[in-house]
């Protein structure tokens, strides 16, 4: 049976809600199993919806966009798979639909990267407004993010459902053949861009005076593979030592009063 235009709109909106919820209140709309349930309700086949959502959900259990690294968009994949099963009138079983969702997820990953790049433009607007002390305007610019993130899911899902499955395959081929150099380039640049933010931050911190502490942090990670949590704990130890050294409670309090705190008479029966 064909999807009505309202159903297509609802499913595309569900895609937008999924990404926005993952960035905001994280109530659960970004979880495949919840998306499968709602998509199933929209197309009237809750069981397949739950099945597809559950299977895809298991695939990315515990996987997250840590440090802003994009991951395959199985959320939109779930919506498209549920829609395909409904429109196939039973000829497409749920297993193949799930299999289909994987390449779709990979294709849509590029839209996630594009959204993050569009946001760079929003940030330029915000920083300009702040420089001109138009803070309220800068605050409002943030809301443009709803368009970039929302659009990065709404548009591809809407087009896919409207123009049917073939559209996705052609789009996939087109991108992988001649635009792949651009996509790879953007992905590589995405990995380097945090340099800008870190350099601005370094300009802010007393790097000229304390450069060697930054070197120490770097050595802990580069040579000793200490995760950031450990680096911070090492940093805490050094920060406390310098704090004591400066508030002239030198690390060496004369022995005599050292024992006050530890003086616990354990044997008071």
């Amino acid at each position, binding site marked *: 049976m064909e999807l009505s235009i309202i159903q297509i709109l609802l499913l595309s909106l569900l895609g937008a809600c999924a990404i926005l919820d993952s*960035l*905001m*209140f*994280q*109530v659960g709309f970004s*979880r495949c*199993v*919840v998306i499968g349930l709602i998509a199933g309700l929209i197309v009237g086949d809750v069981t397949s919806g*739950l099945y597809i*959502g*559950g299977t895809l*959900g*298991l695939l990315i*259990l*515990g996987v*997250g966009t*840590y440090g*802003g690294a994009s991951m395959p968009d199985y959320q939109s994949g779930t919506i498209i798979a549920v829609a395909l099963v409904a429109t196939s009138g039973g000829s497409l079983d749920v297993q193949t639909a799930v299999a289909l969702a994987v390449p779709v997820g990979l294709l849509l990953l590029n839209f996630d990267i594009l959204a993050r790049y569009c946001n*760079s433009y929003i*940030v330029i607007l*915000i*920083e300009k407004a*702040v420089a001109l*002390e138009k*803070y309220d305007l800068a605050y409002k*610019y*943030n809301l443009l*993010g709803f368009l970039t993130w929302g659009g990065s899911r709404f548009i591809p899902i809407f087009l896919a459902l409207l123009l049917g499955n073939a559209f996705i395959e052609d789009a996939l081929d087109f991108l992988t053949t001649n635009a792949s*150099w651009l996509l790879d*380039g*953007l992905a*590589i*640049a995405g990995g*380097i861009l*945090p*340099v*800008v*933010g*870190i*350099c*601005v*931050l370094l300009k*802010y911190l007393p790097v000229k005076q304390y450069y060697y*502490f*930054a*070197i*120490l942090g*770097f050595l802990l990670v*580069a*040579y000793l593979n200490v*995760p*950031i949590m450990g*680096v*911070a*704990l090492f940093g805490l130890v*050094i*920060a406390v030592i*310098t704090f004591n050294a*400066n*508030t002239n409670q030198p690390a060496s309090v004369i022995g005599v009063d050292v024992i006050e705190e530890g003086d616990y008479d354990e044997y008071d029966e």
Partner: protein
Amino acid sequence: MMNTTNNKLSEQDIRKLSIRWMALSQVSWSYNKMMAPGYFAATYPTLKKIYKDDPEGLRESINTSLIFFNSNPHTSHAILGMTIGMEEVKKQEVLETVAGLKTGLMGPFAGIGDSVFGVIIPTIMGSIAAYMAIDGNALGAILWIIANIIVIGVRMKLTLIGYNLGEKIVTMYSDILSKFTNSAMILGLIVVGGLIPTIVRANLNSEIMIGELPIDLQAMADSIMPGLIPVIFIVFGYKMLGMKNMTSTKLIFIIIILGIVLGLTNILV
């Protein structure tokens, strides 16, 4: 010299702060500034109250809110509350400490948050929900939504805990605030040093072909120093930002072009 705060923030203000952080922390997320614009958007209304008739202070505070920041959305509620708590008591005098603590704490809070809220809770709730969904049962999905709503409550509480801690720190250390700031700076710099090889992703091609001989560029760079490429990009970015009429916006485009070129020439992968 320490201007006593007359415009005391109410619990209502702190609740609104939490909601803004949940709503706006990542909508304007970009590769170069990550959660920085979100930090500005969430804190701006509160800062307007703190620096009511002190435009210069507001300007300085907004600049500090816009420095590079990336952490786990859940745990960073505590950082947000803490910086607001400190600024409420000490205003401009505490901005350096705020910069140091934001930078020092974002790394470890990302580590803990991503583990607890990114892996542990979703894996447990997700597996229950997925298995039930595959059997056509939506109960697991609904349970997960309820759990997420409880987590929203936890996030609100975290902001308050941070807020009270922030106030306590500045009042307790008020006379030796500069010494405390120093230690915060040192902690910040050590963590930034550690972030450089962690956040910046730049991998050299490990099978560049010369004749039939595959040359492993990444291994060669590592033989000089592990983390060499990220350091080169950071030094490059820091020098560029120091040049006349260079802005972070221009640097973004330079790095994007660089990424595409290095990708095309197969040096970076």
